[in-house]
Every structure is written in structure tokens, then in C-alpha cells.
């Protein structure tokens, strides 16, 4: 009887199983060359030549493609091999009985890490159960999305209540008497904060090009957040920095360069975003594994090639009062109180108290509240955090908006929501619904990656952003892989997608009779789910 080594890793333990049709294979080698995970290899199989029991020792050697059975070099299901195979000789089958993550922990005594997003999907999607149900008809006519003009700008920066503006009236006109908090009017979509390092320089550059193009050529005032990884000095000193929101997080990566460049900056940045937490892994800091710390990442961040872990909290800030006094004030002062300073937190049961505290801060120095939901993506995280920590975005955004309404302070700290938008393919609809629920705007990272060609999914496909081996060159830092990404093509696709989204937003504004953003227009929404109706205070429909 043959011996089976039970405690070894077997093909049947892996998340994806290779199906290979030798009769179609021309042995071109493209599949093995393209696999960035080294998960498949050419191999030789010795096969019996004949079925006859009398011709015993006649065998032949056949060249085949096999998958590696390894804890490190295993198939993530990205499907690149199938994409390049000219004959369709190779494909991957999802293994329902996958035990890989158990084997990983059992062998390595370490928490399992991955990139991408949560793959549990136990929550269901609230936004898909909401429809735009208040359609203008007859006496209150729908607008024409093609012919009418629409205002799609939203304030970013602290907004003061009208009676706190300290306006004076001279010769029948209002005049300002004091310096007021900085306020910018931006498109309600922000390119989410993905750092140079988390994504490849080509991906980051494509986003920056698309941002500049949308602003300067298409007249769409979109903003991009740098993420916590710095920004090229050349860009800092250029006029295009006015479209960039500089992020500072607990690792302060890249800020040495930013501070050094300040005297030479010709434009103010669009804003500062202080990241306290992120939706995909709340309570954790940033995580960039050494394999992704390429030479240029080291230079921008000023760090050695090592695992880069941002602390889970900003050192020295233990209360909201402290953060308001120290960090926010410092960042405001750094740009002479001319640049909005906003905060990004993970959606949490505690979001409302945090928002309330900031709303009531007497110095009015918090200019935006970015709330990130648990369906958000990340470059790298412990799987346990990704799958089991966090809070859905929709109800928490609504809670924050309604707590402001209760105090008559809606709009004073603009709300921006993100995390899993466009998950089911309808980004504009998701954005629109969140705006109706009270968001001034939304931010997204995942849509940008998908537009760029990310092959990952929410059901376990790829999700290897943490490895630096992204097969699409998006989250890779390996030169050969990065070159797979065509910067210009990605930038073009990003621009096109935003143009399409712009049309779709208007297609939703027009039927509800709105020529400007319907921030807080929850009356336009209905839901077929009674619980959602009660929780979000929108009309139940059946």
C-alpha cells in the first residue's frame, strides 16, 4: 500500500486547482512566464505508453504544466495563465474545500496576511437594496440630463453657520470682517488614498495624470489623495499639487520631503488628510512589507528596506482635544490656515462621538470627515482584521449626518464616505445614494484599481497586493511586473470612467428634479427592506 503523508501540503488543500489540457498545449511557455507567483511550472510526466498488460516497461515522457504545491509559491487564481494561453489549454478551478489558510497558520505560526478586501461577504449590500424612488413627474417635472445644467461641486473645508460668518453690511453689500476657514469647491468624488509603495509608481502616476487631465482639460474638479507614502518632489513644486490632498498618517512617511519642499511650492495643496484609521483594517496602522519597499519607495519615504508598519495610532495623541490642538492646528498652521485639513477614520460604533467632538470644536479647524467602511480595500492586512473588523459605511454615514441634523449643524464638517463603492458595478449609483443619505462626496480606491485592470475579486481571487507580485503591475514593485501597466492607457481609462460617472450622476439627479447635489435628500430614496428603512430613516416600499 502506498504511503500518504497526511501532514504535508497537498494540491487539494490549495485555494485554486489547475486544470490543464495537454492536447491543446503547444508548449509555448507563456503561462509559466506570466505567472508572477511562480505557482506553475513545466514538468515532465512519465506515462505508460500502452494499456497492454504484457508490454510492461514501455513508457514515455510527456511535457506538462503543473502547479506548485507550496506555502509560498501557490496559485492565487489571478488567471493570467489562462489569459495568455493561445489555445485555452489551461484554466483554474476554485477549490471549495481549500485549507490553505489553515495550513499556513499551522506551519508558520504567524497570522495570515493578504491584500485586497474582505472575502467573507456576510453582510450583504445595503446600497443595492436602496432605490431612487421619488421621481419628479407632471407638476414637478424631471430635468433633462443632457440639456439642463447641473452643479456637481461640493464644499471641502470647514463651513460656518451663516450667523457665525461675522459678515458686515456696507453700502447694501455684505463684506467679510474676519478670516474664515479655508473652503474649496470640489467634485464629489475623490481618488482614494493609495500610497506610492502600496501601488506601483505607474499606477500612482496614472491616477495623478488622470486627476490633472480631468481638472485642466475636462473641467471636472476632482481631487486625489496621495496616501501615506509621500509625493514626488517635482509634483510638489508644480502647479498640479493644487489637485492633490496630502495625507499624513501615523508613520508620517514622506513628510520629510514635503516639509523640505514647502519653501519652493508655488501652489497650496488641495487639502491635508490626517488618517486616523481605515475601513479595511480598523485599529491597524499601515503595512508595507519589505518585498514592496523598492529603491524609489525608500527614497520618497526616507526609510530602509524593511517591513514598514505605521503604528495603529498617532503617537502622542490620546484624545480628540489633543489631536485638535496639536496635529490639526499644526497642519493648519503649516499652510497658513489656507488649506482645509480633514480627518479620515474607519467607520465604527464610535464614529458619531468622534464626529460630534469635532463639530463642537470651537476652533473650527477640521474641514472634512472621511468615513471608511469595512468593504474597503487595502494593500496589505492581516486576514483576521480584513475579514472580522470594521463597520459598514451606510448606516454610520447616516448616523453622522443625522447627529449633525439634530444639532442644526449639517454641512459644517463635510462628510465623505468610502469603502466598497462600486462593488457590484454601479459606482455612480452608490455615490448618489450616499450623497442622498448625507455625504458631501465619496472617495474610492477600489474602482480605480478595477479600472486599471485589477484581476482580484471579493470572493478570493488574487488578493495578493501585499506580496509585491501583483500580476497586473498595479500593486507590484517588481520592475518587470510594473511594466505590464500602461500608464497612459490607465490614465485614459480613469478619465473615461469619471466622464461616464459624471453622465450617470446627472442621469440620477435629473429624474428627482435636482440641478445641484442632493446632499441629505433622503426623501428621494426608498428601500424594499424594512430594517434598512427603519435604520436609515428612509421610506419603506414593497
Amino acid at each position: 500500500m502506498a504511503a500518504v503523508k497526511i501532514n504535508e501540503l497537498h494540491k487539494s488543500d490549495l485555494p485554486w486547482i489547475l486544470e490543464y489540457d495537454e492536447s491543446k498545449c503547444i508548449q509555448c511557455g507563456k503561462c509559466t512566464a506570466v505567472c508572477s507567483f511562480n505557482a506553475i511550472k513545466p514538468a515532465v510526466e512519465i506515462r505508460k505508453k500502452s494499456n497492454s498488460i504484457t508490454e510492461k516497461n514501455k513508457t514515455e515522457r510527456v511535457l506538462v504544466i503543473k502547479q506548485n504545491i507550496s506555502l509560498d509559491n501557490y496559485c492565487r487564481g489571478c488567471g493570467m495563465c489562462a489569459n495568455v494561453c493561445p489555445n485555452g489549454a489551461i484554466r483554474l478551478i476554485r477549490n471549495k474545500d481549500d485549507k490553505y489558510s489553515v495550513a499556513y497558520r499551522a506551519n508558520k505560526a504567524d497570522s495570515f496576511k493578504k491584500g485586497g478586501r474582505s472575502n467573507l461577504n456576510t453582510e450583504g449590500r445595503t446600497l443595492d437594496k436602496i432605490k431612487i424612488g421619488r421621481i419628479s413627474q407632471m407638476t414637478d417635472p424631471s430635468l433633462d440630463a443632457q440639456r439642463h445644467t447641473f452643479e456637481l461641486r461640493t464644499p471641502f473645508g470647514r463651513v460656518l453657520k451663516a450667523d457665525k460668518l461675522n459678515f458686515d453690511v456696507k453700502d447694501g453689500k455684505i463684506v467679510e470682517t474676519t478670516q474664515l476657514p479655508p473652503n474649496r469647491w470640489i467634485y464629489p468624488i475623490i481618488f482614494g488614498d493609495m500610497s506610492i509603495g502600496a501601488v506601483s509608481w505607474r499606477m500612482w502616476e496614472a491616477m495623478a495624470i488622470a486627476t490633472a487631465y480631468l481638472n485642466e482639460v475636462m473641467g471636472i474638479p476632482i481631487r486625489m489623495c496621495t496616501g501615506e507614502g509621500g509625493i514626488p518632489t517635482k509634483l510638489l513644486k508644480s502647479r498640479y499639487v493644487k489637485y492633490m490632498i496630502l495625507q499624513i498618517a501615523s508613520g508620517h512617511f514622506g513628510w520629510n520631503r514635503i516639509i523640505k519642499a514647502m519653501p519652493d511650492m508655488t501652489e497650496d495643496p488641495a487639502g491635508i488628510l490626517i488618517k486616523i484609521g481605515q475601513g479595511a483594517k480598523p485599529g491597524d496602522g499601515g503595512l508595507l512589507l519589505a518585498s514592496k519597499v523598492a529603491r524609489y519607495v525608500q527614497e520618497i519615504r526616507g526609510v530602509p528596506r524593511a517591513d514598514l508598519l505605521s503604528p495603529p495610532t498617532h503617537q502622542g495623541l490620546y484624545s480628540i482635544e489633543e489631536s485638535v490642538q496639536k496635529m490639526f492646528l499644526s497642519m493648519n498652521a503649516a499652510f497658513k490656515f489656507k488649506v482645509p485639513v480633514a480627518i479620515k477614520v474607519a467607520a465604527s460604533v464610535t464614529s458619531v462621538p468622534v464626529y460630534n467632538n469635532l463639530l463642537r470644536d470651537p476652533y473650527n479647524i477640521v474641514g472634512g470627515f472621511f468615513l471608511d467602511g469595512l468593504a474597503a480595500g487595502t494593500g496589505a492586512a492581516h486576514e483576521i482584521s480584513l475579514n472580522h473588523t470594521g463597520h459598514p459605511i451606510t448606516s454610520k454615514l447616516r448616523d453622522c449626518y443625522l447627529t449633525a441634523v439634530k444639532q442644526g449643524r449639517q454641512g459644517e464638517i463635510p462628510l465623505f464616505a468610502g469603502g466598497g463603492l462600486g462593488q457590484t458595478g454601479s459606482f455612480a449609483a452608490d455615490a448618489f445614494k450616499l450623497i442622498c443619505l448625507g455625504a458631501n462626496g465619496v472617495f474610492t480606491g477600489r474602482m480605480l484599481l478595477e479600472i486599471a485592470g485589477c484581476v482580484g475579486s471579493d470572493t478570493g481571487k488574487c488578493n495578493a497586493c501585499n506580496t509585491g507580485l501583483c500580476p497586473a503591475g498595479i500593486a507590484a514593485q517588481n520592475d518587470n511586473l510594473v511594466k505590464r501597466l500602461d500608464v497612459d492607457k490607465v490614465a485614459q481609462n480613469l478619465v473615461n470612467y469619471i466622464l461616464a460617472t459624471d453622465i450617470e450622476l446627472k442621469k440620477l439627479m435629473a429624474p428627482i428634479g435636482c440641478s445641484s447635489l442632493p446632499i441629505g435628500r433622503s426623501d428621494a430614496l426608498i428601500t424594499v427592506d424594512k430594517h434598512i428603512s427603519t435604520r436609515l430613516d428612509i421610506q419603506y416600499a414593497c
Partner: protein
Amino acid sequence: MCRIGAIKSKQKLHPSIALKLMRSQQEGHDDSGFAFVMQDMGGIFENYKELPLMSMAGTVEGARLAEDILRDIGFTRVMQWSPDINNKKGLKIEALPIYMFEALQYPKSYKHATKEEKEELLIDTSIRLRKALEETNSGYIYSFWPDTLTLKEIGSPKDIGTYFNLWEENKDLTSSIITAQCRQNTNYDIVRYAAHPFFLEGYTGLVNGENTFYEKNKSYQERLYKGYLGFESDSQCLLYTLHYIRKILKWPLQYFKHTITPLSYDEIIKREDSDILLRIKASLEHLEVNGPNTFLGVTPDKELICVCDSKKLRPVVIGKHNDTVIMTSEVAGINDLMPDRNTEEDIYPNERETVVIKDDLTVERWQQ
């Protein structure tokens, strides 16, 4: 759809003129109600201009309740007037038992009170009366303010006119400003409070149209000032915004239009006052109005104003003849009342215009 009208004259006019103005626009409304507000009173109210005038309708119990509250606060009745009722059979009207109009003397303790203190007393009393009448379902308080009289009722405007003997002109019930609406407006329930014109502390507003930002306006205004109550109609929001801009913030009238239909960012940044307008756009974002509408208003300075939505989706026309100006939904109404005017001087306001009829009837037109 509503039909609205505002009349201002150097003469004192009887409300029959408002009925006549609305009669020729009958095809445009659903014949379901009639309401009017008279300001700058003449006739029998001429001598009581400085005193609060209460306009209420309700049951006998409601009237008693209102009297008790007023007495409790210290008001004393100086003059009372009720319309002559013609309750002939077949009239389409949902009449209430009592319509009461009383001029009241302020409580003695207010003898040396400032104007602001008196106004505070009036709004507080008005709110208290309204709540008490609502709780007992015994009546409606439409206005409680000097030199102002309001009547609203459900039914056919023609029959309402007959019931209150409003078709026959007389010199007792007159004023220089009359605002009126036909149709017991509301897209929701038939509620008397939902009928335009709405009145608050000297400001009157009427709207022909819809306000698709009702939810936004309402959720903001509910916590903005104690007098912003009811919200039975999406149109009330426009009156409250006018009141907020002028009375609370004390901003010039031109900023009302900048609040309800702000210019786009691209238009604003080309202007010298861009900083101010962007601040207003951000701070009062929740008071923006969307949807098709025409707003007619009266201010405490006895000015008439007219503004339209930013896409000019609802009609309005302004005509002037001798010493009277009429703003109304359809030119047919003005043609009936002012057949001899020079129609070339009629004004059809555009989407960015504010038209103001000053107290001396001069016309001011501003582009936003």
C-alpha cells in the same frame, strides 16, 4: 397647480379685487380653496395699526381657548370684527363655526417695551395659541401681528367669496397690499395651514411650484428659529428663508436670491464678490431651493418681491397701471383688472432676476 397673486396699491383695496384676479385664472387651478393676507390695513382697522391683530378660525371652544390664553398673557381686546356670513345653500365651502379678527392691546408690563421685545411676545403668543388649538383640534391661528389680516378656507373660491360676502366691495375691509392664492394647495393632505399665503412676523410668501429640496430645507429650518413651524407645504420653506435672511441675519434682500438659487461655482468665481457668494453657498446650502417655482413675497417694509427658480420653470407676470401693481401667475388676471395698461411695460422676470416693488410703487429689477 396653484395660481397666486400679489396686489399693491397707493389706494386701499377690498379683497374682492383678489377674487377677481383669481377668477380669470380659474382654469389653472383646481377650485379647491381660497386664501388671502391683507397688510397695511385701512377701513375699520386703520386706527389700530400699531396693535397686534389676531386672525383665527375655529370652533366655539377654540375661540374660548384663544381668549383664555390671551387674557392669561395680559392682552386685552380693543376691537373685534367678524365677517358677515352668507350661508346660502349649495355653497362649496368647508366652513368653520367661528372666524375671529381681534385687535389687542399689549399687556401692561409691555408699556415701555422695545419693538424687539414686543415682537418676541407676539411670536411666542402665536406659537402658544397654535399649539393649544392644535392639541384640542379646535382651530387655526393664521397671523398674530400688527396691521395684518388673514383668511383661509377650503372650497370653491367663488363660493368662499359669496360665503364671506367678499364679492361686494366695501370700505370697512381694505388694505394697500393683498396677496392671494386659489387652490387649497398641498400635494399631501388638505390642511388649512398648507394654504398660501404664509405669514411670519411681517413677511408673507406665496409660491406657485414645487420645492424638491423640501426635505433638506425642512431638516435645517426646524432647528433654525422657533417660528419655523408646520411645514405642511414645501413652499413654506421659501418664506422661512426670506425671514431668516432679512430678519435674523439682517442681510440685504439681494442675498435671498443668492441663497435659494445660488449661482454655479463657475459663474461665481468670475465675480468680484465671489468670496462672499461662495461662503453663502456653503453655509446656506441646506436652504437652496430646487424644482420649478415662482415666489411672491411681502416684506415688513411693504415691498413686494418676485423671484423664480433657476431654470424659470413656472410663469409669472407683473403689470402696473396708475397707482396699482399686480404680480400674478397668468397675464389673463392682469388683463381683467387692468385692461388699459401699457402691456409693453409688463415684466416677465427671468431666472436670475429679483423684482422689487418699493412702497412708493417704483420698480427695482436686479440681476443676481
